[in-house]
């Protein structure tokens, strides 16, 4: 289960960041090492396929390395990485529309959902039936979010998957805090109108 952690950044982040921005690859690796697990989990939530998630996360880190000069420290490094991850994910969806590739590679696609659920049943935690229910609800949420326009999907994922503040979201999305508020409101309103089958009991048991 997941950790509400990863605000963890290395103690000498600023020094490592300065070194990495000068082109030191070792410093960059040490800088992002504590965030790798978090990034993989976030990618897995989008892709639902472990190998696609790994590809997405590594593409994100390589892209982050290339554009590290644009990181100006106005938001958390993890939020900045997550914004890149969302952008790469959107790109891969666009690419997938133009190219015939196995459907299981597509982000947001739930092929083999049940098979994977049974393979990944946790040793402790919810019962097998509960785990399947969790997966189904997660799939429903994932599909609902996939239907949102990118600008609405990004704020929802940044808020609930990255726990980003308004200021951080505004910084990585390049818009004002007021715009982020409005997008968040509309995104939640759209999800509410989809009448997802979410009883309070179902998500209470997850936590």
């Amino acid at each position, binding site marked *: *289960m*997941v950790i509400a952690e990863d605000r963890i950044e290395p103690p000498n982040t600023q020094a490592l960041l300065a070194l*990495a*921005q*000068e*082109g030191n*690859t070792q410093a*960059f*690796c040490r800088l992002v090492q504590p965030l*790798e*697990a978090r990034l*993989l*989990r*976030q*990618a*897995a*939530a989008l892709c639902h396929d*472990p190998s696609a*998630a*790994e590809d997405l*996360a*590594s593409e994100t*880190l*390589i892209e982050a*390395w*290339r554009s590290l*000069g*644009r990181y*100006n*420290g106005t938001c958390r490094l993890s939020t900045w990485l997550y914004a890149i991850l969302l952008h790469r994910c959107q790109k891969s969806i666009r690419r997938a529309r133009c190219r015939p590739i196995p459907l299981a590679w597509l982000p947001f696609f739930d092929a083999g959902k049940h098979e994977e659920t049974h393979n990944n049943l*946790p040793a402790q935690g919810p019962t097998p039936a509960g785990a399947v229910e*969790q997966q189904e*609800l*997660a799939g429903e*949420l*994932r599909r609902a979010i996939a239907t949102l326009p990118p600008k609405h999907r990004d704020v*929802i994922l940044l*808020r*609930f*998957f990255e726990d980003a*503040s*308004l200021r951080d979201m505004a910084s990585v999305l*390049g818009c004002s805090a007021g715009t982020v*508020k*409005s997008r*968040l*409101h509309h995104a*939640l*309103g759209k*999800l*509410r109108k989809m009448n*997802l089958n*979410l*009883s*309070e009991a*179902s*998500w*209470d048991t*997850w*936590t």
Partner: protein
Amino acid sequence: MGYMDMKRLFASCGKQRQQLSLLAAGVLTASERAAAEAHLAACSDCRRYYHELRTLSGALSSWSKTTPDMEPTAAWHDRWTRSIHSEKRNNSWQPAPSRASTSNPSVTWWQALLTGRRGALAGLAGVWMLTLFFWLTAPEVSQTASQGALPAPRELLQAFMTRERLLSQWPAIPNAAPENKSVDRPPKTVPSPRSDYGGNSLMS
């Protein structure tokens, strides 16, 4: 409840809905939260709305928390670190500008103007192309039409002067025009209503 009261109530709820969404998402400040909660205490419709959003945001938070962890494998770590090392070796990576120089002086004013305005510029280009297309596809029609419809300025001026002269002579030729008109017009053949309703029989 009067019309104005109803109007005020709905306006107030409409304004509060965004705050309630943000409350459910957990991004309000303490004072904003207090104001939103005060409204919730007074409005049952908004309470129902907030409850739905709270369920939704709870499910979203739980989904993120229950997504299984993926521990980074050594092979995966090696793969991406090798990629960035090779980029560095191939010199395809340029040293990043320092944080102090984020307002880059090498960026010229026109580059700064173009940055972030791609959509607007594309729209302008589209409008320009459409205008050009219509202009190129129908030039002759518009020219002939304009030639037929609009005489030269000199002719216009002459016509205007003639009209002015005729108008100034108008009182000098009384009843000429109306008489002519009445001659040209066909005679009226409207039957008298009395004959239709059998007026003759009444008279007799």
